[in-house]
């Protein structure tokens, strides 16, 4: 157990962003004192593994994101089971829920997000859960044994992962989505329809343009009445409509908030010495050039890592972040990055090239800027070597000279024009030997 006191570096949170920060910090600074405050009273786990656990693919010990001795080895003091309630930036002190105070030299806010509950009466009943935390997981797990029918509110990425996991446990699953298609606005219409097909084939019931009008039951939900009047009996209700950044600690500190806590490319907030990363932050999106809340694991980890370097005085910029998802629903694999749905205000100068194979199961689409840079892509079915596209995107390569090659399922560096290929692989090959 650690003693209260002053620390060179203090972190609030205990997830992807926190680990990124600790690993970044410790790779350059072995001696400074580091502490973290964690509201959840358990070792660091990956919430992205909740669907895998509830779907029966992994055991509980696999939920841990780092080994149990991680903090000891990194020499981090952990204040677990406590919530930070206030930041006093003038004197550089964080106050915990038990009244104790921790001083800091530099502070990272990695408080993540909290699940959104829409304003429907009755969502506080016993068998209603979000799909976000260890308590959710344990609550849902308890209900699984007796459950035969479940309603999932929300047809986004998390809602659909929940739906598939419950289906795998033999439960009849009903998915409700307010929009006219699933996964909007994460993927485009074609992809939505491919996913809808896969879910229906597996036997899930989908209700589009629909939501809950009324939750029926006293202590427990027994059924829900839909907007269109239909009634679905259920033993379990999962709310997966979204996650909102947890920014409450910024209040009264002068830290600027723009949906998430606004940070510059060094991950520093508007208050010097205080950094933020992950689901609670608004970070630079290299595709759109603006700061946005992009609540995804790679952004949280890397944002934290870069914050760690900067906190230790080593300048690094976070310029690799954008929206990116690797998803799978039953046997359909999907990856996307950047812009793949062109909204009314983004159409300017963007060109779409796409190919939907005759078998109906492979689909590729690239969004190109006027000067031929990839601004986004989505691949369905065949996703091998997708990272090369993300690399071309990050390096802002003009792809027009070889744009049709992008549709090859085995696209690789060999398909690039010679000069570009050897430039990108300059440290990886030896030329001029013959």
């Amino acid at each position, binding site marked *: 157990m650690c003693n209260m006191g002053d620390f060179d570096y203090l972190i609030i949170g205990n997830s992807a962003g926190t680990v990124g920060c600790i690993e970044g910090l410790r790779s350059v600074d072995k001696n400074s004192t580091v502490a973290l405050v964690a509201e959840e009273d358990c070792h660091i786990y990956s919430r992205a593994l909740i669907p895998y656990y509830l779907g029966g*693919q*992994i055991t509980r010990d696999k939920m841990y994101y780092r080994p149990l001795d991680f903090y000891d080895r990194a020499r981090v003091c952990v204040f677990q089971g406590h919530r930070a309630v206030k930041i006093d930036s003038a004197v550089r002190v964080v106050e915990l829920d038990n009244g104790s105070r921790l001083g800091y030299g530099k502070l990272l806010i990695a408080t993540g997000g909290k699940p959104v509950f829409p304003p429907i009466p009755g969502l506080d009943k016993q068998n209603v859960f979000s799909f976000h935390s260890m308590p959710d997981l344990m609550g849902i797990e308890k209900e699984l044994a007796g459950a035969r029918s479940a309603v999932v509110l929300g047809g986004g990425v998390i809602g659909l992962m929940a739906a598939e996991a419950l289906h795998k446990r033999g439960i009849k699953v009903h998915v409700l989505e307010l929009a006219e298609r699933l996964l909007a606005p994460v993927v485009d219409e074609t992809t939505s329809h491919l996913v809808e097909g896969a879910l229906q084939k597996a036997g899930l019931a989908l209700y589009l343009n629909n939501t809950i009008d009324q939750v029926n039951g006293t202590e427990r939900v027994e059924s829900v009445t839909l907007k269109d009047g239909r009634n679905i009996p259920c033993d379990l209700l999962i709310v997966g409509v979204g996650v909102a950044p947890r920014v409450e600690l910024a209040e009264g500190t002068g830290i600027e908030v723009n949906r998430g806590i606004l940070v510059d490319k060094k991950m520093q907030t508007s208050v010097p010495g205080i950094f933020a990363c992950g689901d609670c932050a608004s970070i630079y999106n290299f595709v759109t050039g603006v700061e946005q809340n992009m609540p995804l694991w790679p952004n949280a980890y890397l944002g934290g890592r870069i914050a760690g370097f900067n906190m230790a005085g080593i300048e690094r910029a976070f310029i690799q972040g954008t929206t990116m998802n690797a998803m799978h629903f039953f046997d359909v694999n999907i990856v996307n990055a950047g812009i793949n749905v062109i909204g009314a205000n983004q159409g300017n100068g963007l060109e779409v090239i796409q190919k939907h194979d005759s078998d109906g199961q492979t689909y590729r689409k690239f969004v190109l800027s006027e000067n031929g840079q990839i601004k986004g892509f989505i691949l369905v079915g065949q996703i091998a070597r997708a990272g090369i596209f993300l690399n071309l995107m990050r390096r802002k390569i003009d792809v027009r000279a070889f744009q049709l090659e992008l549709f090859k399922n085995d696209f690789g560096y060999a398909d690039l024009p010679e000069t570009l290929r050897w430039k990108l692989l300059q440290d990886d090959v030896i030329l001029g030997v013959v």
Partner: protein
Amino acid sequence: MGRIKAKPEVCMGCHLCEVWCAVAHSKSKHIIKAFLYEDDKPLPRLVVEEKLPLTFALQCRHCAEPDCVTACISGALWKDPESGRVVHDPNQCVGCYSCVLTCPYGNVFINPRKREIIKCDLCAGLDTLYCVSHCPNEALVYEDC
């Protein structure tokens, strides 16, 4: 920490590096037994890039700041500070394919048999780098850098 480098001009495109990589990661480490008798047919963890007459092998770069590790949602990937290797633990992997999406070299491979990835481990535990030592034209070398 070094890396394996290809010499495209002397690569003949024989794919023997892929064959021997698969053998290196088989149970028996024996080319005939591995391909004929093992239940799980061995799989290579590198790719020969090909646009004839150009061919060259490309394997994981064991990056200094690996994007695959950044993206891994399960903790199955990490960079070992001592050896410099980017290590994958198949027991921890759930096959989310975030690493496939982020590896700039396209060097994380989907295991066709189960929801899991496979990648180069620089022949951990073996006495040579199989792709390098079995290339008949010495088109692969290991360089310290």
